């Protein structure tokens, strides 16, 4: 009945009244002339979102476009803009340093990464992230220190403190790797590499810190703090190698035997290199302090009978004391160097015999020796720096005559001395003790 009724209703339209063709045509022309008058030529057509929805509604129902597509597109745009702005901020902040306005964004990004890794239960990923972030903190410290800005020492100290926290986390994670049956030696290998890199960066930071023309108590504290974290990185690297060996001996094949041996050998080589550098540093400091001592003695002789006697004598006494300490350090580092060399040789012999565990013990031994040597070197450098707050060796191009520039402040008078040193002191630029700078000033001036 309904279908029949609907059919009958539809047939009703055949009875529609048609307008006359004449009227239709005339009305069309009238309408066109009317609407053409209202059209204003537009120079710049503004972008209109409605056009997009209209275009979409050709293919999709209009209500669907407006009620579903439009809100979805708006949300997607918002999310897209949010993500892109976050990505831009995060990528821009990746180069930022502590104290800069984008730095908090960098740290938030890192924290988010760690949280995500922890939430999804990716322990290995989380560990690698901590190792990576520790490396970043080390690099940030290096960049801040290289700016030679005393105001940023505090920021550098905070960064080193963060680095220490990260290193401690990495160490803890390392123990988890050791305990977990399913953890691979590969993870320990990655941590070892990261820790080695951190150690190298921190070594560079220490050199930069000594090279800074402005030294304060804060920078001394920072140096101590960096040494501490450097040792922590060194210990972490050793521990990582130790775990690599353990995992390897347990049958883990994620790292080959050659890789394990290579890691041990690298650490042994690194230790002997450190010991040599420390010895070289102390030797060079000794040479410089010897040259300064000679010149100050000459200066003291020349100053006899003038009002500079007491000042030059006080300086001479201080340099004498520093010279004695340096000579003692030369002797000690020499001994440590010999011990380190012997231990490394033993380690390499064990390595060649595939006695990996004992070779790792040798790394520990040689690291203990270099740590002692480093302590002595640091103390000596500190003592020398106390006497000569700034030691700058200005090398002329033919390196035949060197000029040692000493700027010191005594309680009684401000003394600025630039000494022309007659004897030749050739200083290697790579050592942390010396700062090489170019100057053409080689005249002797004494300024009161």
């Amino acid at each position, binding site marked *: *009945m*309904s279908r029949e*009724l*609907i059919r*009958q*209703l*539809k*047939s*009703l*339209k*055949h*009875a*529609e*009244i*048609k*307008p006359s063709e004449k*009227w*239709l045509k005339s*009305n*069309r022309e*009238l*309408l*066109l002339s*009317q*609407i*053409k008058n*209202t*059209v204003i030529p*537009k120079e710049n*057509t503004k972008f*209109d979102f*409605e*056009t997009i929805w*209209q*275009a979409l*509604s*050709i*293919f999709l*129902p*209009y*209500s669907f476009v*407006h009620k579903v597509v439009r809100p979805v597109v708006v949300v997607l745009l918002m999310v897209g803009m949010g993500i892109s702005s976050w990505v831009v901020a995060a990528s821009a902040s990746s180069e930022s340093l502590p104290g800069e306005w984008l730095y908090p964004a960098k740290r938030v990004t890192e924290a988010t990464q760690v949280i995500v890794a922890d939430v999804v239960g990716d322990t290995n990923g989380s560990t690698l992230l901590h190792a990576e972030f520790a490396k970043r903190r080390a690099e940030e410290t290096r960049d801040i220190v290289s700016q030679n800005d005393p105001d940023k020492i505090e920021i550098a100290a905070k960064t080193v403190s963060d680095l220490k926290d990260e290193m401690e986390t990495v160490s803890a994670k390392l123990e988890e790797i050791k305990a977990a049956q399913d953890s691979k030696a590969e993870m320990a290998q990655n941590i070892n590499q990261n820790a080695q890199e951190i150690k190298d960066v921190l070594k560079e930071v220490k050199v930069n810190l000594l090279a800074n023309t402005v030294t304060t108590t804060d920078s001394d504290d920072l140096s101590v703090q960096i040494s501490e974290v450097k040792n922590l990185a060194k210990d972490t690297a050793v521990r990582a190698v130790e775990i690599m060996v353990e995992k390897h001996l347990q049958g883990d094949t994620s790292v080959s035997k050659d890789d394990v041996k290579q890691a041990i050998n690298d650490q042994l080589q690194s230790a002997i290199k450190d010991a040599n550098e420390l010895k070289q540093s102390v030797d060079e400091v000794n040479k410089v302090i010897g040259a300064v001592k000679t010149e100050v003695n000459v200066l003291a002789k020349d100053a006899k009978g003038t009002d500079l006697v007491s000042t030059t004598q006080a300086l001479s006494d201080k340099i004498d004391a520093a010279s004695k300490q340096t000579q003692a350090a030369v002797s000690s580092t020499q001994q440590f160097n010999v011990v380190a060399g012997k231990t490394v040789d033993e380690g390499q012999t064990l390595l060649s015999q595939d006695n990996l565990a004992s070779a790792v013990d040798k790394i520990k031994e040689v690291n203990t020796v270099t740590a002692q040597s480093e302590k002595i070197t640091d103390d000596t450098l500190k003592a020398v720096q106390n006497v000569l707050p700034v030691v700058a060796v200005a090398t002329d191009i033919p390196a035949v005559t060197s000029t040692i520039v000493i700027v010191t402040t005594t309680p009684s008078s401000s003394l600025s001395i630039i000494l022309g040193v007659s004897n030749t002191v050739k200083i290697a630029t790579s050592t942390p003790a010396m700062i090489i700078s170019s100057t053409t000033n080689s005249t002797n001036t004494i300024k009161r």
Partner: protein
Amino acid sequence: MSRSKFSEKLLLLKLRTTEDPEAFAKLYDIYAKRIYSFVFFKVSNREEAEDITSEVFLKAWRYINEKKKIESFSGLLYRLARNCVIDLYRSKSKQKETLSIDTEMTIEIGDSGKWKEDLGENMVNKLEMQKIVEALQKMKQEYREVVTLRYVDELEVSEIAEITGKGQIAIRVTLHRGLKKLKELLKENQAVE
């Protein structure tokens, strides 16, 4: 989507982006006859139907020019036509001062007396058709309007919803009730005969 609907939407898009009067003229060609018929059934006067049809297209042009939201161009034309017819009835009722003009619902804008004489010669069963027209005339204006828009003018439910300003569900319900009422009226007529 039918081809005519697709071309209608394309023309509308062209109109929106370029404000091309020729695109509007093409839309006029598609809809002028239909709108005229729709209006004529309601006003039963050729001149008035022509005037209203012209007015509808002019208003539609202004509507497009003002960048207002258009869900369906045919829906817009029918809505404008319906409103123009209501306005005409209002003005007529005002002149006669016989009808209240408080609300649109109180104005009967039906097709009284116009179906029979406009049925034409092609009807197979004139008698049957006359019965349906009579039944339609007896129906409430609300039902009649929706039933004729859906089955005589063959508009989509969404278009009818746009024309009447009601929701699609409400239109479906009205359509169902309208058809039911039409059946009852046809049965009653048969019983009387």
